[in-house]
């Protein structure tokens, strides 16, 4: 990952169009769960695409901060998929997604405590052993924090990366949302990250509500987030960039326009 690559979060609705002209992006980030157990035509198309562009794997259900037992079968499939596609990175979220036997289908906040740090670090190391590569973890948007937090998000993230050798998928939109929602300095967060710890950067849109920001990933990147992106790329110039829309997904041309802008902003 020495040269920054620019691409999009690959969504089903764009797959055929992208297979017709895969050269429009250097990097496609696929949702792990959408393909991990796929064996047929879908997987073949992704393999075909992987021969023509770089692929990142981006999961939602690893539950790396949670307490439910890690799914060893899923980790085996994930490693096989990463090897098969020659994935540039394997990522998931710094969150928990399961309580007991019940999945939340949401990326929920972990307490920023020393105990949570120990717990998460042990799980990240276990995952990395199973995957045979560093895990890349994304900072998630949050709307509440635990009163028992002992560390800031930056301190927790930095300590986790240093302790495990994992890398960060820095979602600058999520960082902006959290800085707004919890009243911290996003620039200071960037300064506290270890050198060369960012593997990739996400840019996305959010909705500004009366008293907080709601992470929607369903609209263009705001000017405030582009400003934070420029700051992030000055610090982590080798990081790749992914434009990510999760709902109200627009035509591919809209995403490619944001990719083009990211290329320009990354040089500022």
């Amino acid at each position: 990952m020495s040269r920054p690559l620019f691409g999009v979060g690959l969504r089903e609705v764009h797959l055929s169009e992208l297979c017709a002209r895969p050269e429009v992006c250097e990097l496609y980030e696929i949702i792990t769960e959408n393909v991990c157990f796929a064996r047929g035509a879908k997987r073949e198309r992704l393999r075909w695409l992987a021969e023509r562009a770089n692929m990142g794997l981006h999961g939602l259900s690893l539950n790396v901060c949670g307490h439910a037992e890690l799914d060893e079968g899923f980790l085996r499939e994930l490693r096989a998929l990463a090897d098969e596609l020659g994935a540039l990175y394997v990522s998931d979220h710094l969150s928990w997604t399961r309580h007991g036997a019940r999945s939340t289908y949401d990326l929920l906040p972990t307490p920023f405590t020393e105990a949570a740090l120990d717990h998460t670090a042990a799980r990240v190391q276990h995952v990395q052993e199973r995957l045979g590569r560093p895990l890349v973890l994304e900072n998630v948007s949050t709307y509440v924090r635990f009163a028992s937090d002992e560390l800031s998000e930056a301190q927790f993230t930095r300590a986790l990366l240093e302790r495990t050798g994992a890398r960060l998928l820095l979602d600058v939109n999520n960082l902006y949302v959290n800085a707004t929602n919890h009243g911290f300095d996003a620039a200071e967060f960037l300064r506290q990250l270890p050198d060369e710890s960012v593997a990739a950067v996400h840019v996305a849109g959010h909705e500004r509500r009366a008293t907080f920001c709601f992470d929607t990933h369903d609209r263009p990147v705001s000017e405030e987030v582009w400003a934070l992106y420029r700051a992030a790329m000055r610090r982590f110039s080798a990081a790749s960039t992914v434009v990510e829309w999760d709902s109200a997904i627009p035509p591919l041309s809209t995403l490619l326009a944001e990719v083009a802008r990211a290329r320009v902003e990354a040089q500022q």
Partner: protein
Amino acid sequence: MSLPEHEALLAWILEGRPPAEQLLTPVDDLAERLETYRGGFSVRTFSALGSVFPRTARVLGEDWQLLGRRFAFSLAPAEPNLNLIGRALPAFLRDQGAPSLARALAALEWTAFELVHAERTSALDAAALATLDEGTRLALAPDQRRVSIDDAVLAAWPAPPREDSTQALLSTRSGEATLTPLSSVQARFLAVLDDAANVGGVIESAGLDAAQLGGVLAWAVDAAILVRR
């Protein structure tokens, strides 16, 4: 408070229990912030169902909002993968007395979803077929499924009109879920594939004459749907 207790606290709150203000921050607009999490579960599950069952949703119209959301809320989702939550939807629609067309489409759409995840195995070509002995076991390729259809299903899918049988071949090989109506000869041939122990058994059980057998084998080879079991 231990880590599992933190987890339990937030999970309970998201299930509708009153927020514990002394444990979560900020407190001024806590209820509104928690609502974003509560709303998210519903939006995500309903959206995931809609992507797997688009035809069912279209046929149900406004009732999809009701039935789909009721199903989403009825889940105690053990499945970590959100894509897989629709497995029980066809049975749920049956239990809810949904129209038969919607139930049939839901069953087919879930089967199509399973086919996307099925192994792709090399199909037998004409040369390979010619060298088979009678003891060889044949099967329909794992990414294909013989299914029952009627005119309403074919119209709603949409698919070409029915032939002289109520069977069709469901496939996702092209990247889209397609239904191809089968002739009665094709349907009979594929039906015996499921049961017959070997090639000899297929020929015997299908009850086809030489011309019919030659024709159906040529079709199956051309469609690349026959594999060794």
